[in-house]
């Protein structure tokens, strides 16, 4: 697999439905999540159904650009409620694979599924346009600190 991408943004939210906060660097804790994020502290919308694939979520900036271009639906990285925004990373092909974000090793657990809750939160009909490109839910295998600009590559 020959691809290489870039980490654009890091976001966390302290609890369910709280506005996402952009970080200059994120501390990735193996088996837990991103320090301070709702899914690392069991405060998330789905924390009552714990799953290791919720430790870190990623979404492609290309999807957000396509939503605006093809559907006239703006969705900013902060609004996406995913932890990491990527450019040049084929997220849908990384299910069941390991890859690195900077020094951190992630495992692609499963594709993210959009949720009606999200439409309600933002008041835009994003559910259908996001089907099959809603991002990737990952486990953190090896931790460390990541920053925007870090290289993302196969492991």
């Amino acid at each position, binding site marked *: 697999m020959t691809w290489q991408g870039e980490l654009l943004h890091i976001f966390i939210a302290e609890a369910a*439905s709280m*506005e996402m*906060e952009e970080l200059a660097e994120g501390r990735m804790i193996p088996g837990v999540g991103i320090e301070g994020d709702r899914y690392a502290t069991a405060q998330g*919308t789905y924390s009552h159904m714990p799953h290791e694939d919720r430790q870190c979520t990623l979404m492609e900036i290309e999807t957000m650009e396509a939503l605006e271009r093809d559907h006239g639906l703006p969705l900013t990285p902060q609004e996406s409620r995913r932890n990491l925004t990527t450019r040049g990373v084929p997220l849908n092909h990384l299910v069941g694979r390991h890859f690195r974000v900077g020094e951190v090793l992630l495992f692609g657990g499963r594709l993210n599924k959009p949720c*009606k809750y999200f439409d309600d*939160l*933002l008041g835009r009909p994003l559910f259908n346009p996001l089907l099959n490109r809603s991002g990737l839910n990952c486990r953190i295998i090896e931790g460390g600190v990541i920053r925007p600009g870090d290289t993302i590559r196969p492991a």
Partner: protein
Amino acid sequence: MKILMPAEVTAIRDLTPRIRLFTIKPRKRPAFPPFRGGAHTILQLRPGLRRPYSITSDPTRPESWEVAVLREPEGRGGSRWLHEEAVVGSPIAASFPQQNFVLAEGATRHILIAGGIGITPFLSMLAEAPGAELHYCARAPEDAAFLPELRALLGPRLVTWFASEGRRLDLPALLAAPAPGTHAYACGPARLLEAFSAATAHWPAGQAHLEHFSGLPPGAAGEGAAFEAEIASTGAVIAVPAGVTLLAALRAAGQRVDSACEGGVCGACAVPLEGGEAEHRDMCLKPGERAGQIITCVSRGKGRVRLGL
């Protein structure tokens, strides 16, 4: 569910023996987003307890917001929490501004009518309408929050109507003759709003505006016959017994529905209505919106309704 901004209480001060002013600041951003006068925010006081409050502070000072809260011992718990539990430093969360009540564009004269705690949405509106006139009804001067500030700001354009002084506002006389460009606004207890609606019944559409504060009381919200709610996405049918709100029945069945006022006023718990006949009892949906939405905290169905959940 609304997106919430983490915030904290940074100051508390008594305006009257029963009304307390809370200053809140955002914890994760330098300032709150902009709003127009008359907006409210839904505060999450603790998980599961959300209530709408008008933002009383100046829209040009976004680094903090203020809300004025009347202590209501018989209410649903929001004012009690703020008066008894909140301290400086209490972490809370605030929704983005909700803008249902706003000054009409292009109006040449604004007549504002406030009853008691219904003064709150007008505080931020006055910053945008320097020439507005305000009629302020309250039991007594000592119960009227913001009175010194309003006197200083409005001078003779503030007219007070205090029962303790034997003065009662004659709404039919004040609102007898609508004029082009004149808009009237009312906020306060149900009795005042009913009188305002009656006094403006002959006004042209869109020139009389009101903001409900108190919806159905807690006991009345669930009154009514049993019915069923079908969830469109799953086909599940949820029984809503007599005496139980649709909102409570949906949540008991595991559906995630937001709410705030729980009296049919704020609209936070609206869900799409896809079929069946509803008995609408809210005070927030416009007539044209009722065909496609239902306010689950107070409204009910007849027989079976189909919900877009």
